[in-house]
């Protein structure tokens, strides 16, 4: 996978939730669902290159997949990684 592809893959899935909207309003932070193996440095580079903005901080967390049961069969959704990307003042992303 080329580095360009990887970059787009990193920012392809914005997480649009009530919590994310509040974070956006409070500290200009945008939430993305990123691959589990993504690191903060490449996330920062991807957001800066793809959206042309200044990133001041990247916080990541691993989200445990929820348990799911279908009749007798118990299962679990995959874990995923959430990245909260804080932008510099005056920078915005049109994530919709």
């Amino acid at each position, binding site marked *: 996978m080329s580095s360009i592809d990887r970059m787009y893959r990193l920012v392809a899935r914005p*997480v649009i939730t009530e919590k994310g*909207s509040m974070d956006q309003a409070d500290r200009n932070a945008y939430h993305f669902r990123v691959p589990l193996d993504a690191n903060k440095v490449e996330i920062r580079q991807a957001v800066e290159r793809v959206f042309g903005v200044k990133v001041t901080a990247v916080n990541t967390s691993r989200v445990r997949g929820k348990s799911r049961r279908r009749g007798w069969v118990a299962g679990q959704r995959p874990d995923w990684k959430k990245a909260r990307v804080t932008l510099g003042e005056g920078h915005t992303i049109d994530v*919709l």
Partner: protein
Amino acid sequence: MPPSTVQVNVDTSEASLAKVSLSIPPEEFEQEYKGALRKVSRNVTMKGFRPGKVPPALIEKRMGEQVQKDVMEEFVRRAYKQALDENDLSPLSHPRVPNEAMTRGEDGGFSLDFEISLKPKFELPEYKNQVIESELEPVLPEQVEATIEQLRRERATPEPVGDEGLGEQGMAVCDVAFLYEGEPVLERTGLRLGIHTPPPGVDPQAFEEALSGCRDEEVRECPVTLPEYIETEEARGKEGICRITVNEAYDLVPPSDEELWALLEVSDAEALETRIKEKLEEAAEKRERDRIEAALLDRLIEETDLALPAPMLEEQTEIRLRNLAEEMVRQGVPPETIKDQLEEQRETAREDAEKGMRALLIVEALGEKEGLLVTEDEINAELENIASRNETSVEEVRKYYVENGLIQQMSIELLERKVRRFLYDQAEIKEPS
């Protein structure tokens, strides 16, 4: 809180037409728009958000265009209402605003011009004491006699034919087949035919000769010109054979005088004649009353000086033509024929629309002037009548009328009935000369 009034200018210089100009400054539109977004966000549900917690900014991105349109429609509604209230206008119909006109200006404001067709102002001509000549004719003894004969025929009982076979007054239950080159192209079973009621396309003379004197289980044939509606295309309009298989042949035996009197619950011939004469007179009087009522209303429509607004007339004509087109589509008329026929019918549709609108305006004006109002009770009584005629419940009928928006149409019909009755009661009916 949004402002309850909008900036509207109404130009009423043209008769029967009000030109309304609506102008909303950018700040006012923006305020209303934001308010609408907030209102929508309170009700919308979206994945990732608790109900009612979606930020207005997100709503704007996803549904902004629709919300903006709703705000514009709300402004138009307010402007329409305000224009009517402030200028004391009586609209003939709702204004029609083209979709493309519903756009925000470059400065973020909203302005729109639209027209309202108004009820034309007119004076009713003198409608009381109208002189009209009755055309009621007395019931003649021959009419009474003919009606009794008719009743006798209707109450005839079928009896199997004798040796002489099917006669003048008989009836046969038959299967009929149209044959083309020996092959059946149309078949019908269980038809009830008399010797004077041939199937379509069959020569009456030949049919009468073929069927006269026939008995049960006999097969008769006569020539037929095959009709255009049969499925076999090559046979249409060609000469063929009509094969009639008589299943059962009957003589229709009319009741005797005494039997007829008993059936009609009268004691003798004189009582029967009196009863029939009364019924015929009653029917003739009702027909004559209907004729006079219609003639009086037609006269009033003709004598009233009333100019209808051209756009409204055009719209009504188009509605009539559209209904006609839909009817033709249902009947399976080809599209190119429909187009031609609609053009042919345009003038008639226009005349009908004009007459209908004139009648409506005149009936409304006269009803208002004379206080002939249609009450809730009268509407309920009419619904009950319809229910009893159709052997269903009043609730069913009411539901149907409400769902199809027919209540208003019904009240107009009731008003017309009242106005016609009023004109009749006020008229001077002269005896036939």
